[in-house]
């Protein structure tokens, strides 16, 4: 639709016309704000815990475990230099005692959702799949944070508890 609009504007004499082809789906998926009656409050991005711990592939497990526990978490995301999610250290890895690096202990390629996902539908998914949390990334895989089910269910727009 937007290419036709761009051409129509040119036919009307506009000379500096640009077509953002990926549109507002892309904008929201990048975690950028949207305005309107739905707006950002109905989206996952508004309820994300951005302070979830992160670590690198080469980090030592003992050090990561200590840091994660001290911060009051039981999970940690393994990211690269661009914050792209490579894997996740779950509760078993954090509470374990085996030595090594995060690369050895992580679960690679965890399922993720976009910040623009509708909260109500996401809560339904978490309930049906019995998920206590879901990592949130941008459309290009960069970590935004972690959505906790308890936060999502407490949101006014999440729908009634089953």
């Amino acid at each position, binding site marked *: *639709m*937007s*290419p*036709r*609009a*761009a*051409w*129509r*504007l*040119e036919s*009307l*004499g*506009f*000379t*500096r*016309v*640009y*077509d*953002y*082809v*990926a*549109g*507002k*789906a*892309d*904008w*929201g998926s*990048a975690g*950028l*704000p*949207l*305005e*309107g*009656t*739905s*707006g950002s409050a109905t989206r996952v991005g508004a309820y994300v815990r951005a302070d979830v711990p992160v670590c690198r592939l080469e980090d030592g497990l003992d050090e990561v475990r200590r840091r994660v526990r001290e911060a009051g978490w039981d999970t940690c995301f393994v990211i690269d230099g661009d914050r792209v999610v490579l894997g996740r250290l779950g509760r078993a890895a954090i509470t374990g005692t085996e030595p090594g690096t995060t690369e050895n202990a992580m679960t690679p390629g965890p399922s993720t959702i976009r910040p623009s996902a509708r909260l109500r539908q996401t809560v339904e998914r978490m309930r049906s799949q019995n998920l206590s949390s879901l990592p949130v990334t941008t459309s290009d895989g960069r970590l935004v944070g972690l959505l906790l089910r308890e936060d999502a269910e407490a949101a006014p727009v999440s729908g009634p508890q089953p």
Partner: protein
Amino acid sequence: MPRAIERNEVQRLLDEEHGQLVEVLPPEEYEDEHLPGAINIPLKTLDRATTGQLDRERPVIVYCYDTQ
């Protein structure tokens, strides 16, 4: 010729060249959600009258929901 651009270029045009965002979806979709500062001119209503509010000297960035 209109130029297809990605998100980074949209942000640059907004920040550096006072770009004007135009959502071309129907009003109900615009009211539901839109990019900050965007105005709504549905594709079916694009004509000289409805575009009269746009500054011809500044970039005009059109968008819809996605590539459909």
